[in-house]
């Protein structure tokens, strides 16, 4: 799965890269130590290889015959996408991954410098090596460079090769053996074979250190965004073993390294009073972040094979890590129009396409910015809003940044339309840069250029519909300006989240809903009671019976005969009231007796009722009451009468 994913990614990348080529360039490949480009020449396809020197050779017939035959109609042009797919390099990720390990050089002096190099036939992204190598004691091993290239196989496919470098410094003489260990490639273990390093005494003839790169970093202040040209030096051992180096670049966490570099030259390098011959190549980098940045230079070194005179070999070499202290651009003194231009720059006088123009006609203005700096990465400054001009976004120089850097200038193109004859000069365009040498911002405002604007012959609005629309737009935008501050806070809210999206708003809806439901329930109950008034009377009677019975019982316990008689009579009245729909106080003994069945009325219950009412009347009207003790003895019978009446409620 992983191999397929990586293959798809790689093929996709190659297709995208091919899309940037001209249609004639049909295949881009990278052979060992260089690159191969097959282009459509006058006499058929040609292969251009670059391995130190450039050779032009025709493509061999075998490869041509391996190309899949496309049944193309002579009338229809070949499909570009199909051409790209068929021409995309096939990456060999199916073959078993092999590993090679070596010390470079195999013999080194104690305290000298060697490289432990591992070469794996796998994609760089798929290789996972142990954090620490199982190095024997006496060897100081630190991680170095890492690179990937492609080797053609006999089957017309490209085999990826990943090289891992480790810097090795032996402390004492002896024979050191780096034991075999395992790395992961495509998620599978690959065994790296054992390698041996012979360490001899310093000064032993014929023993040399491994070739390594030296960076000549600037010692003055370096600022974020400043384009730096760093010489990368490869000392020439003087025995002709080193031919040169290529694909030089500088690595760092927050460093932008230009894709193209300057050519390699032979030079005499002065290093603290010691002069030596060396190969030198300048690499352009731009620090992207302030603070100390650790940089490592890396390149492929072309050397003459020690065992095969005349044959070249290419190996990955690197430099020791060096720290570059990068300063941030100062906030103080920042001028208007600063948009990241850093360097010693200056603006030439703008060139206008014409000085006399009719209102509504486009005017082009070219502005050349020249000097030393990040010319390739400067964004053209915007024209501020103008009432008399319609302006368009500026067009940046489309030249490759590397070329722009070489030639030393960049061109911004502005297009603007005068809206009326009042426009007497082009608008001034605020622009500034930061000069690292001076440590200050420099005003590079593009000056206004005088123009003569004539009115349109046939009237502005009829002459050019687009311009008329533009004028309308400008008239509308004429009032456009940043307004002043609001005098007060104005409309405020607890939150910017819409009320409908807040829980309390949803909960609030339950209040009117509950109110309505409550009112409806109340109305329903009210209507039911209206239809059945006896329900209310019985409820009221039960309440009255309970109240009066309680009073009667309490009076009986206190031996209050008159109180008991009054309470008991009232309780009897309350219990009988619903039947007559009358006020209980209006009922008399006969009314109560009428509610009793005939048998009970004539029996003991009727007698008890009569006695109680008589006692109550006596207590109420005073004087000739019966013996209270007799009334109190009627309590049990009264309870029975009450049970009888309550059962009917």
């Amino acid at each position: 799965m992983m191999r397929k994913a990586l293959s798809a990614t790689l093929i996709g990348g190659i297709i995208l890269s091919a899309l940037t080529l001209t249609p004639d360039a049909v295949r881009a490949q990278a052979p060992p130590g260089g690159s191969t480009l097959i282009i459509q020449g006058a006499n058929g396809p040609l292969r251009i290889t670059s391995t130190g020197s450039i050779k032009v050779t025709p493509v061999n017939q075998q490869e041509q015959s391996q190309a899949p035959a496309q049944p193309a109609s002579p009338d229809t042009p070949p499909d570009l996408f199909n051409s790209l797919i068929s021409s995309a390099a096939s990456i060999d990720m199916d073959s078993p991954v092999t590993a090679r390990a070596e010390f470079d050089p195999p013999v080194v002096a104690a305290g000298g410098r060697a490289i432990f190099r591992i070469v794996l036939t796998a994609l760089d992204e798929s290789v996972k090596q142990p954090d620490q190598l199982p190095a024997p004691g006496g060897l100081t091993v630190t991680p170095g460079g890492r690179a990937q290239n492609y080797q053609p196989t006999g089957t017309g496919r490209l085999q990826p090769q990943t090289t891992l470098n480790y810097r090795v410094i032996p402390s004492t003489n002896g024979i050191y053996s780096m034991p075999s260990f395992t790395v992961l490639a495509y998620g599978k273990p690959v065994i790296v074979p054992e390698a041996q390093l012979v360490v001899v005494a310093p000064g032993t003839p014929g023993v040399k250190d491994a070739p390594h790169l030296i960076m000549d970093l600037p010692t003055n202040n370096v600022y974020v965004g400043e384009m730096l040209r760093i010489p990368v030096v490869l000392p020439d051992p003087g025995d002709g073993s080193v031919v040169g180096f290529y694909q030089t670049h500088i690595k760092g966490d927050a460093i932008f390294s230009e894709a193209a570099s300057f050519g390699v030259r032979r030079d005499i390098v002065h290093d603290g009073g010691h002069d030596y011959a060396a190969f030198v190549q300048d690499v352009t980098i731009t620090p992207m972040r302030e603070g100390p940045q650790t940089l490592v230079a890396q390149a492929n070194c072309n050397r003459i094979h020690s065992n095969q005179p005349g044959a070249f070999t290419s190996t990955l070499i690197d430099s020791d890590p060096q720290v570059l202290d990068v300063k941030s651009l100062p906030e103080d003194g920042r001028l208007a129009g600063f948009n990241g231009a850093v360097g010693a720059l200056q603006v030439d006088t703008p060139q206008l396409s014409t000085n006399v123009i009719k209102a509504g006609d486009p005017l082009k203005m070219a502005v050349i910015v020249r000097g030393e700096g990040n010319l390739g990465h400067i964004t053209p400054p915007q024209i501020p809003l103008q009432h008399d001009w319609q302006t368009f976004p500026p067009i940046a120089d489309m030249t490759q940044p590397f070329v722009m850097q070489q030639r030393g200038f960049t061109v911004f193109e502005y297009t603007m339309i005068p809206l009326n004859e009042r426009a007497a000069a082009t608008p001034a365009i605020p622009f500034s840069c930061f000069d690292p040498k001076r440590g200050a911002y420099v005003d590079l405002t593009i000056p206004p250029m005088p123009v003569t604007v004539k009115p349109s012959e046939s009237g502005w609005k009829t002459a050019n519909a687009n311009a008329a629309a533009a004028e309308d737009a400008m008239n509308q935008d004429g009032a456009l300006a940043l307004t002043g501050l609001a005098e007060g806070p104005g409309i405020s809210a607890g939150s910017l989240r819409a009320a409908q999206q807040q829980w309390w708003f949803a909960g609030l809806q339950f209040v009117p809903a509950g109110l309505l439901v409550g009112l409806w329930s109340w109305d329903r109950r009210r209507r039911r009671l209206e239809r059945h008034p006896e329900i209310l009377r019985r409820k009221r009677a039960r309440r009255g019976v309970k109240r009066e019975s309680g009073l009667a019982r309490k009076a009986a316990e206190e031996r209050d005969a008159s109180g008991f008689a009054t309470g008991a009579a009232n309780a009897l009245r309350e219990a009988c009231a619903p039947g007559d729909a009358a006020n209980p106080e209006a009922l008399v003994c006969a009314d109560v007796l009428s509610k009793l069945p005939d048998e009970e009325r004539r029996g003991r219950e009727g007698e008890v009722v009569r006695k109680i009412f008589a006692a109550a009347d006596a207590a109420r009207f005073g004087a000739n009451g019966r013996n209270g003790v007799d009334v109190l003895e009627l309590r049990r019978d009264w309870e029975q009468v009450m049970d009888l009446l309550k059962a009917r409620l």
Partner: protein
Amino acid sequence: MNCGLPITDCGLKEAGARMRALHHFSRFFRMLAFVSILCCASGTRGEDMFQQGAKAYVAGAFAKSADYFRQAVAAEPSAGGLQNLGNAEWQCGRTGAAILAWERSQWLDPFSANTRGNLRYARKAAQLEAPELAWYEICSAWLPVNAWAWLACLSLWAAVGMMFLPGILRWPRADWHQGVAAAGFAIFLLTIPALAGTHTRSRMGIVLAKDTPLRLTPTKEAQVLAKIPAGESARLERERGNYVFIRTSGAAGWVESGQFGLIACDRGELGKESSTTNKHE
């Protein structure tokens, strides 16, 4: 006889219940008073910050002014505070934060011609396009954001009330009852598109950082599809970890959540965007 007794068991219980009720009421009112004092204090603090921000702005200390206005709107989000915050952020060169503040101001008060003018000015200057809105979203921008919700709520319950209350309360039948109910339902139905528009607009936001990378997947190592300029409007579609999936007028992809500010946010999130923007711009 028993009625003459001043204190009974029943009376004691009743007095206790009354005391408990009084205690609950007093606690409720104390809490209410505390909340009111807090609200007043917050409002006062917001107003102080607003005034100080205005003074700093007039003095030309725009960064300081932006800080004050940020604190003012964090204490109490207001249309004026957000408008002034936008002005201060614009003067500081933070296009994304300025446009976001103005959009928020317009979210609260769409009648402000100043905010509308500032947004047009900023978009013209930064060469940005105004967000494309659907018809119901345009409707939703006619009134302050919460007005639609309240209008819908009041009209619905007025209509429902006018349908049921006359019957429940036995009011005499009148034509105006039906008129109010019909008008309420009509208004409620008319607010529905605006409510939908408010809902969809609440997922809109502004890209804060300059050249924000729009990524294919929500990871730091993901392929960058495009660079979005600060101030570009986009719609939030989903979130995953520290990334949000946004759709602009021309592209869709993942950006870091700190590089994108929603117009409709909680009070606690107000003012956080600027600090993020400072890192990026």
